[in-house]
């Protein structure tokens, strides 16, 4: 019998209290309600009483994994309430050596899909790594047309494609929300923050946005866990996934099936090679 939202919410609160009681955990990262019914916000429960503020409903859309980067050298563990995508984000951070597994206490919660367009394409509702699991595993679905958006967009003519992206990058206000929300963007100091080195200007005009947009695709393209946070957080609603998915599709076609953030993920595609890779530059 499947648990109801409230039951899971209570179980989460119990687990959070147990974790805090154990003394090993500094805070439990979850969601709490805001003054708006259809919005929850990320929340660090640090005391017993605050655990009762943790909520679990279809509006818990924010990613919780990347908050582990706030304190890269913690004394105590950080408990993270992880849905399927969050656990993949945690795998991503661990595989990029930015977070140590022993610094995390993961409370896995199978996710029933949130108020977020990406959730209907989700192939990993159940958390992949966790210390304790709350509720029951839900049935996974295979998203057959994972690259439908890319295939449709590829049919356009080059000029149409360029104009589309040019308009999108005209809209971009260069606020870096997509970078700060993305678990694959986990550098201590992003190349874009060192604009003195000449890579990337600070202006939000089309030219600098194009450099930033394409560079980010290349930086995260082979490690993107398709959690959709970049599109959710963008204030100007740019279709960022449409770019990174293109890279993932190419990697799938050229170098074999590829999904990131999985427990056995090997080195990122651009960081390794196979002798029998396809070659078109002869």
């Amino acid at each position, binding site marked *: 019998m499947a648990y109801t939202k409230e039951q899971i919410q209570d179980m989460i609160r119990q687990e959070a209290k147990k974790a805090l009681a154990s003394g090993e955990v500094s805070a439990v990262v979850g969601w709490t309600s805001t003054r708006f019914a259809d919005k929850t916000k990320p929340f660090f429960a640090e005391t017993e009483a605050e655990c009762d503020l943790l909520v679990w409903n279809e509006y818990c859309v924010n990613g919780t994994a990347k908050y582990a980067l706030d304190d890269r050298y913690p004394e105590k563990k950080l408990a993270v309430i992880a849905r399927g995508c969050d656990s993949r984000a945690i795998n991503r951070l661990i595989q990029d050596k930015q977070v140590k597994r022993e610094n995390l206490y993961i409370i896995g919660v199978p996710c029933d899909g949130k108020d977020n367009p990406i959730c209907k394409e989700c192939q990993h509702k159940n958390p992949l790594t966790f210390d304790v699991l709350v509720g029951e595993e839900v049935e996974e679905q295979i998203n057959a047309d994972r690259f439908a958006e890319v295939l449709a967009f590829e049919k356009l003519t080059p000029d149409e494609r360029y104009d589309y*992206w040019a308009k999108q990058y005209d809209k971009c206000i260069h606020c870096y929300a997509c970078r700060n929300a993305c678990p694959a963007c986990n550098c201590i100091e992003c190349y874009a923050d060192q604009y003195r080195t000449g890579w990337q200007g600070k202006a939000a005009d089309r030219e600098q946005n194009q450099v930033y947009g*394409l560079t980010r695709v290349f930086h995260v393209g082979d490690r993107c866990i398709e959690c959709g946070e970049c599109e959710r957080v963008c204030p100007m609603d740019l279709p960022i996934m449409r770019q990174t998915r293109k890279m993932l599709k190419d990697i799938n076609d*050229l170098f074999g099936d590829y999904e990131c953030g999985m427990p056995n993920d090997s080195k990122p595609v651009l960081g390794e090679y196979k002798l029998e890779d396809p070659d078109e530059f002869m």
Partner: protein
Amino acid sequence: MSVKKDNNWEPVILAFCCNWCTYTGADLAGLNRMKYPENVRVIRVPCSSRVNPQFIIRAFQKGADGVLVCGCHPGDCHYATGNYYTRRRFMLMKRLLEYNGIDPKRFQAKWISGSEAAKFRDTVIQVSAEIKALGPNTKFVGTYAPQTATEGGQE
């Protein structure tokens, strides 16, 4: 956009050549007095794997009409495994640029070894002919134009 605007417009093509193979091949082409068009400018890099995708975007923005990345054949890279990474990186880069509207002929990569002088010449002739046919590159070109100071705000 390149220097002259009239009909005998000459494309500007930037070629990243790996020092041990393609650059040597290009020198050999010179030694043998082979002839090829003037619109390729070579940047010497130690290995084709030194070329960062951001250089390519920068090149198009600064007015290159075509970019060429050349290196040793996989297997005989001077640094053993450098060009395996180049191969993966620029196969993905080529498709990404095409996806963003840049004509695939404008960005090409080729394996040219130190002894394939003729192949270097033929590649240059072929690439500059293709790009001359395509005309000046208008995509990704930087909005900065010294003569017209673009007005701020919404234009």
